[in-house]
């Protein structure tokens, strides 16, 4: 199935459900919650890794990895990722030599030398990512008391808050399931990275913190990390804030679940198999019961 047809299916399915939902949501009093007191409704974006035939765009992951290298990795780690993952199919598929050189920038402990001291050696492909800090205490000491979260699961560990009236809830739930809305964390991450705005006039912002319209409580320890032209892309893609945020979010979504493509590909076959099996079993049942009054 090509991506185009599947996204078409997705959209039309979505449109069908949205249609039925609209009548319900039309009654909710503050129609769009995005303007009400500080609440920003995170928009749902189109990601290549969404939907039935989701995949990761190699070029986008490479751009995202560049954003990570240039900006994020100064403070954040990807502790669940191994360097070798960067070379594996379905991901950024970077050349082995490039990743080896990237890994070798870091030192890892590997047993003890003959003098009984911890033996340090450059990281290899098989090693897990080495973070910028030895531990949370060191991070907090260096960063004004805040500990930057590990990013390897960030797109799965975040969801978006939505104001849903109770009567619309079953419809939204159904819509989320049918349109396979598993990208809330990605939407949140993108919205956070692009969510640095001036605080409202009456907002009491604590010193050292930044205002972010998406972050819970709106006061975030991380200063605005990305901005237009911050990262120079190798493939000529215009380096806007929005583009950087999308690219690094896609990279983090891949880092959170490198098996996603394999899962969706296998899933399509499993569904086809089960539907045919169910059809055959139904036919058998009909056949066996054909002369039975019941």
């Amino acid at each position: 199935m090509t991506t185009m047809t599947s996204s078409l299916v997705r959209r039309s399915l979505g449109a069908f459900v949205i249609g039925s939902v609209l009548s319900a949501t039309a009654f909710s009093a503050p129609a769009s919650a995005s303007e009400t007191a500080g609440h920003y409704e995170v928009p749902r974006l189109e990601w290549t890794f969404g939907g039935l035939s989701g995949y990761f765009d190699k070029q986008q992951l490479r751009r995202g990895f560049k954003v990570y290298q240039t900006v994020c990795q100064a403070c954040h780690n990807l502790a669940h990722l191994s360097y070798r993952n960067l070379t594996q199919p379905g991901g950024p598929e970077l050349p082995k030599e490039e990743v080896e050189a990237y890994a070798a920038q870091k030192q890892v402990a590997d047993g003890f030398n003959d003098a009984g001291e911890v033996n340090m050696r450059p990281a290899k492909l098989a090693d897990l990512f080495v973070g910028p800090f030895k531990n949370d205490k060191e991070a907090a000491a260096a960063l004004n008391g805040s500990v930057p979260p590990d990013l390897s699961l960030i797109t799965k560990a975040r969801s978006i808050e939505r104001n849903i009236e109770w009567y619309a809830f079953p419809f939204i739930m159904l819509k989320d399931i049918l349109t396979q809305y598993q990208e809330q964390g990605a939407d949140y991450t993108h919205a956070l990275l692009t969510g640095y705005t001036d605080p409202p006039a009456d907002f009491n912002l604590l010193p050292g913190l930044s205002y972010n319209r998406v972050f819970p409580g709106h006061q975030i320890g991380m200063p605005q990390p990305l901005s237009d032209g911050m990262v120079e892309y190798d493939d000529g893609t215009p380096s806007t804030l929005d583009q950087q945020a999308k690219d690094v979010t896609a990279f983090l979504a891949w880092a959170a679940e490198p098996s996603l493509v394999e899962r969706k590909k296998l899933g399509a076959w499993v569904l086809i198999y089960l539907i045919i099996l169910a059809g055959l079993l139904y036919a058998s049942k009909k056949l066996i019961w054909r002369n039975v009054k019941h």
Partner: protein
Amino acid sequence: MSHASSYEPKTSVTRWLDARLPIVRFIADFMVFPTPRNLNYLWTFGAILAFMLIAQIVTGVILAMHFAPNTALAFDSVEKIMRDVNYGWLMRYAHAVGASMFFLAVYIHMFRGIYYGSYKAPREVLWMIGVAIFLVMMATAFMGYSLIWGQMSFWAVTVITNLFSSLDTLYSGLGTTLVQWIWGGFSVDNATLNRLFSLHYLLPFVLVGLVVLHVWALHVVGSNNPTGVEVKNVEKETLPFYAYFTTKDLFALAAFGVIFAYFVFFTPNYLGDAVNYVPANPLLTPPHIVPEWYFLPFYAILRAVPSKLGGVLAMFGAIVVLFFVPWLDTSRVRSASYRPMFRWFFWAFVFSCLALGYLGAAPVTETSTMASQFFTFYYFAFFLIVMPVVGIYETPKPQPDSIADTFTHKSDDGSGRGARPVAAE
């Protein structure tokens, strides 16, 4: 409906074995077990549940080979399964989504039992074993969720184990002592995780034992059916289990499998909480502590009662009351198809359970608390008031004399509604 054995060993070897361990006879009799012809597709959930239990055990045993029940390693070992174990992601998602599917099926199975009066004599023991299965399932699922050792795992364990401290109001120190005994220390820590893992591995096999009893009891009294009328003529009204009901159950299982697979492969995290992908942190409480969806109605009941001990009693009472259902329902008519009043109360009960589920996840406000109290009241009223009272005052619609009546005159008889097979899910 225990039936006489029709198995006759044909070879000398099977005759020899039959005289010593009649296991072939047991299987053969199982296969020809007479089952009412008029069962609808709601009756296929028994087979679906049996499959789910086996699926959970198989995936669970594989996961346990790679899981490290240690507070320092548990979360990372789960991620290792997701990333580095061959098809580990499939095992883990199948197990996590499988728990949800197990509960989805068990709730449908239970509502079916209530609608068609499957708990009434002579099926009281069958029903009560079922309630015990439900209780053990809940304990097992809760413990399994805790093993991930994410933020929600950790805080769910903290909140639920702390419920026992409410016993301090009965006898000073009783609750605190009990909680520390459960924890194996003074906080939820490594000792707690270890015992949760041990019990999570043990309880599924207790479930298998209970399921054996459940099926045994079923084979003594026979299946209920949509009319609620007992089988009178085995020849005319039943069919052997094998071939007729195995194909029907297998078809339903495959259809259920489509939904299961859809969630596993395409929305594996929809039914879980994102916060549980954050490693457990005893120093940081998440803003909303919410259990998995299948516990939400009971969580709403817990929160609806203003006193802590009262809430705990109400929550456990909501399950304990199920044990008494066979004696709370005073109607002699089993199937709600012939109970015009009870039917409405039944659907109101289903609605209440769904509403409590919604409220269990909603942030606490004055309105949500009031709504929770209202639906909690109805939850208990359904069992304690509706079941005894409606049974006495209701005039049931005429039931068919026999199951056969519903299909022998099918063309000219529209009233046999329970007998018509409903469309597949």
